């Protein structure tokens, strides 16, 4: 399958010159090649070369992802694979920075103008301190991270994220990079018929890629996206206005928001948890329990826990921890997330993992550029391949439900997650 997926333009997205676009396409193709062309050679390199050498040196076989890693780091094939993977990431961000930098300060001015047009709220907290887990390292090697500003009111890192995250996902998340949000929306439609949230919160929304589909599914609901980065929240607000979707954005920490108890009927997050920390994640789950109204649902979409896969696949995925500035990536996958939800106050029988099928086929149906029926089907139906951003088939979601008080129990609550 040739991946020619193209991102949908909108007023906030930086425009690439011919050569910038060619560099960006190259970095996207390079990621595809690393995964399709080099990654499959890791297993034979391990089995035929690194594993026997490790056993010879230590007297026992490599048993878990840490020992496999110890066996592989000196292997020349692995070194080429890992080095090229890192270089592809560096080329990706650099190729987008060229476009963003060239269009400053116009992009900043446009964000302000678009935000002023829309009816939705934008809240930036002047005294806000982003947590250390997003400032200590620039996550996934994105220069500047989510929170840094070149000038007051700056959105440059958010513009970088909007384009870069699309390239990083190689377009698998759809032309608006919103596949996770749309997939969870599809899951809600199919699995929770009759559920009609009045207020929806998306935690760690960055630029609102996955936030907007909820407003489209529930147009009468009040939808909020919160994030610790001021630039991404600003940009998200402007982007939503550019796309004509009325979603509120606020700079807030999901560990401790200032919304009242029981304020939201639906709380979601998308690839948030693995970018937090061992201390923050339980606090976020607790905050969800506090914010959730009776009868409501919390749905966290992230990447699968390690215990669902073999040690070699764990090793490949854990390279993100070591080589892509994802410090919590590995540790988060080792946590018992069901227990975290129980500790936060949810009843054990109301918490479970499920799979939300990828919505990418819809992009093909809508005739988006590069999204042909064949290429979209190939993405949606393929087996999970370690190292890919999109897991294939579906997104792993953690669902927790807070039953309604017995007297008010409705139809949706009877279909609770005990199924």
């Amino acid at each position: 399958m040739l991946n020619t997926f193209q991102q949908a333009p909108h007023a906030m997205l930086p425009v690439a010159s011919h050569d910038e676009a060619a560099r960006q396409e190259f970095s996207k193709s390079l990621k595809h090649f690393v995964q399709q062309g080099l990654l499959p050679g890791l297993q034979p390199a391990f089995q035929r070369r690194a594993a026997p050498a490790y056993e010879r040196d230590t007297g026992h076989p490599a048993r878990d992802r840490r020992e496999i890693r110890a066996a592989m780091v000196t292997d020349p094939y692995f070194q080429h694979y890992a080095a090229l993977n890192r270089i592809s990431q560096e080329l990706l961000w650099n190729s987008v920075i060229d476009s963003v930098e060239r269009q400053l300060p116009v992009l900043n001015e446009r964000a302000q103008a678009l935000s002023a047009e829309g009816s939705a709220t934008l809240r930036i907290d002047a005294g806000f301190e982003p947590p250390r887990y997003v400032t200590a390292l620039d996550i996934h090697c994105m220069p500047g991270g989510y929170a840094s500003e070149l000038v007051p009111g700056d959105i440059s890192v958010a513009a970088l994220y909007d384009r870069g995250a699309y390239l990083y996902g190689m377009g698998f998340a759809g032309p608006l990079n919103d596949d996770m949000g749309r997939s969870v929306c599809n899951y809600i439609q199919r699995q929770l018929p009759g559920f009609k949230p009045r207020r929806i919160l998306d935690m760690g929304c960055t630029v609102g890629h996955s936030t907007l589909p909820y407003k489209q599914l529930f147009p009468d609901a009040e939808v909020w996206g919160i994030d610790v980065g001021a630039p991404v929240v600003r940009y998200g607000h402007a982007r939503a206005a550019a796309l004509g979707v009325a979603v509120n954005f606020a700079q807030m920490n999901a560990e401790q928001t200032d919304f009242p108890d029981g304020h939201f009927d639906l709380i979601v997050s998308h690839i948030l948890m693995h970018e937090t920390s061992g201390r923050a994640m339980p606090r976020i789950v607790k905050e969800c329990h506090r914010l959730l109204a009776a009868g409501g649902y919390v749905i966290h979409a992230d990447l699968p826990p390690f215990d669902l896969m073999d040690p070699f696949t764990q090793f490949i995925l854990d390279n993100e921890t070591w080589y892509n500035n994802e410090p919590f990536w590995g540790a988060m996958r080792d946590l018992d997330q069901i227990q975290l939800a129980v500790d936060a106050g949810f009843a054990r029988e109301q918490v479970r993992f499920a799979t939300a099928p990828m919505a990418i086929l819809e992009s093909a149906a809508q005739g988006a550029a590069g999204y042909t029926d064949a290429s979209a089907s190939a993405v949606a139906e393929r087996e999970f391949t370690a190292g890919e951003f999109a897991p294939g088939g579906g997104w792993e979601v953690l669902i927790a439900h807070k039953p309604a008080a017995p007297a008010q129990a409705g139809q949706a609550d009877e279909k609770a997650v005990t199924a």
Partner: protein
Amino acid sequence: MSADQLKAQRHARGKRPQFYATPGLDQAMSMIVVLAQELHVLADRVDAIERVSKARGIDLAAEVDALVLDQPALDAREQRRQQLLERLYYLVRKEGQELAEADSQARYDRVISETAQA
């Protein structure tokens, strides 16, 4: 670009891992991939030129394929290829020359020492 143009951050906070034991090889690999990227940019630009021309009624791709080179063109291209190879293998050829002249680091060090005293 004006002097007060905003400069974006280019480096991600966080120590970059070293993948190869050989010093400098990580940097060299990055340079090689960047060169491949630039080569691809040029190929896309040529492709764009052909497509834009075709839209204006000039089928550059077909005409380029059908182009018959005359003698001056053949000479110019051969000269360019040889010059490219000489630049590409500059250091290898330098080593060949040193071997032919029996040049060495010892001779270089001796010259430094002698020059200081003479």
